[in-house]
């Protein structure tokens, strides 16, 4: 057969359209999940690559492939900048056919993404951010907040410390929205439980590495408890230096992750009290999960954020199986509504539910960091102190001012 230049061009043009048409057809049955996380900054270890591994783990365990539904995953680094995060998510929704965004550590980015998800009517389940505004003034019908929030941390750690005699507090606060919110919420719990707040050192964030000055001021105030309203390497530096300066106060880590303790080492971190809604060595189910995901994480143990990403992805896929791929792809708000109707059940958080304001509820746990002599080895770091039941762990819905909650 002779091929003329015209037919060659025509078939080339036709071939050019084929993959596009194919992709469109495929997109009808494929669910695409975008994991927006911190791949290079301070939250890389507690979320980052481990969070993406958690999405894959959830997909493998969901059995969704057996139901004929294909799920693929894209990941991106938001660089802790709200504008960059929102830009990536916009592109994901508009161009790449992403149906669900998960993780998003960093409260600023998290709030920006919630706005985009609402605008584009897609589904968004946050596990990494702390701000409780996601389910109060800033709540929307496309967003679920999964693992923890500032209210949960403040209530559990603040309340428990006061009950055990720590009735006078001094705060070291990262001077921006997150740190201020944490200090404010914790102060409320401390004073309402009959305690006193004796002082607060708001320090410039980011860029502060030496906390000894604030530690000496805290010690001089005579307070019994030192509340650390910061996160990541700032908290690590504060704790290291508190140990160095022989600070005798009890340290309350208001937001500490397993990876922070791993970085500090037990000889420095021992005795610190903190709140997490997930600890890998908590019970048989959490241990089983940690063992299953360990090969994907280079042997490291999952944090509360990574567990939240796993559990929320699993729940989302159950919802998709229930309502069908086409419906899930068409309407993010309807998908989120479907997820809120279904009780949650997973190895990390056990049985739970999602409230109308988008708050996923489960118990929160107060932990104390073990002494080196009590630990059996790497990642064996926490012992349980107390727990708060699911219905009391989070802010009551009527106090959140979320417009979705009808009184």
């Amino acid at each position, binding site marked *: 057969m002779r091929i003329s230049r015209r037919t060659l061009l025509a078939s080339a043009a036709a071939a050019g359209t084929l993959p596009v048409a194919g992709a469109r057809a495929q997109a009808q049955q494929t669910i695409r999940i975008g994991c927006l996380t911190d791949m290079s900054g301070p939250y890389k270890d507690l979320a980052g690559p481990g969070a993406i591994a958690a999405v894959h783990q959830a997909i493998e365990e969901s059995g969704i492939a057996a139901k004929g539904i294909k799920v693929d995953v894209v990941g991106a680094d938001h660089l802790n900048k709200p504008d960059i995060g929102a830009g990536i998510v916009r592109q994901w929704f508009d161009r790449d056919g992403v149906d669900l965004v998960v993780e998003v550590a960093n409260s600023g980015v998290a709030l920006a993404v919630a706005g985009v998800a609402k605008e584009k009517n897609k589904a968004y389940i946050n596990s990494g951010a702390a701000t409780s505004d996601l389910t109060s003034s800033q709540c929307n019908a496309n967003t679920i907040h999964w693992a923890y929030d500032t209210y949960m941390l403040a209530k559990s750690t603040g309340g428990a410390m006061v009950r055990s005699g720590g009735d006078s507090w001094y705060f070291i606060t990262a001077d921006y929205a997150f740190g201020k919110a944490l200090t404010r919420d914790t102060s409320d719990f401390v004073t309402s439980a009959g305690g006193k707040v004796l002082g607060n050192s*708001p*320090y410039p964030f980011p860029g502060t590495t030496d906390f000894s000055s604030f530690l000496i001021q805290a010690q001089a105030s005579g307070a019994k408890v030192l509340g650390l309203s910061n996160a990541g*390497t700032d908290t690590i530096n504060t704790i290291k230096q508190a140990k160095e300066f022989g600070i005798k106060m009890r340290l309350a880590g208001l937001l500490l992750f397993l990876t922070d303790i*791993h970085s500090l080492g037990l000889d420095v971190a021992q005795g610190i009290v903190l709140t997490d809604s997930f600890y890998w060595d908590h019970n048989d189910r959490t241990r089983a999960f940690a063992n299953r995901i360990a090969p994907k994480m280079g042997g490291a143990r999952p944090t509360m954020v990574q567990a939240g990403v796993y559990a929320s992805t699993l729940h989302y896929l159950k919802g998709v199986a229930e309502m069908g791929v086409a419906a899930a792809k068409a309407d993010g708000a309807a998908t989120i509504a479907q997820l809120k109707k279904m009780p949650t059940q997973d190895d990390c958080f056990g049985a739970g539910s999602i409230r109308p304001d988008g708050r996923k509820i489960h118990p929160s746990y107060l932990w104390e960091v073990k002494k080196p002599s009590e630990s059996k080895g790497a990642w064996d770091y926490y012992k349980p102190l107390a727990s708060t039941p699911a219905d009391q762990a989070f802010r009551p819905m009527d106090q959140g001012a979320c417009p979705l909650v009808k009184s």
Partner: protein
Amino acid sequence: MIMIFGIPGPLLFGQLLLGLINGAFYAMLSLGLAVIFGMLNIINFAHGALFMMGAFCSWMLLNYLGIGYFPALILAPLIIGAFGIVLEKTLISRLYKLDHLYGLLLTFGLALVIEGLFRNAYGSSGLPYRIPQVLTGATDLGFMFMPNYRGWVVLCAAVVCFATWAIIEKTSLGATLRAATENAPLVQAFGVNVPRLITLTYGGGIALAAFAGVLAAPIYSVNPNMGTNFINTVFAVVVIGGMGSILGSIVTGFALGVVEGLTKVFYPQASATVVFVVMVIILLTRPRGLFGKAA
């Protein structure tokens, strides 16, 4: 109790001392920068990254080879200094004929690459490094508990700063160096190998940064961003002290540490900004810096 501006005296003395300790780090880092700028005319933005490498180097020596803190205090500056020499030979030396800005861009890029590589390999939350056994504990000074390790840092910084100043200002090697900065072709005509001298100077400046990194490792979290946090303040120190002035950077380093420490008592929110406020005031009143020579 004595009260000074409504602050108890002992608390204030404590803060002065802490300021001096932080000033020790500023002095050591800005010293290296001043030496490099004075001799090579390179604004070395990679200084923070190399400081971080010094800390990581001591961690690696301990965890991979079992070499402790005190040998690391010597070895890490040598290793990182050698790395600096490689950088100078292969990259930086190509820019001497160009404008300052090219050196700034190159070293800034190097800093980003180095920090990115370390972040990829070791994560971002940092690695633990213990204070050596003999330097643990604290001494009661009456007005505050002074951790022994911090005292050691100030001592080391003072010795290193004095030694560097003495080498450059008081020895014949230092005289040759200063002469080479003034007029390289003439010094070369006297049979001095000027390019080698410059390479060694860069290596020496980097070794100073690495030394500060080893001292910092037990106090701060050993993490890839640790240099970035310091570098802006340190540049301000160099500018205030007078670009390229050795004595200026030492004195200013310690002095600004104290200013910053006092700000942390009276208005902590401004403690990161106060250094730059001082810089603006100095630049308006003495554009060449406190110790800068007139053109």
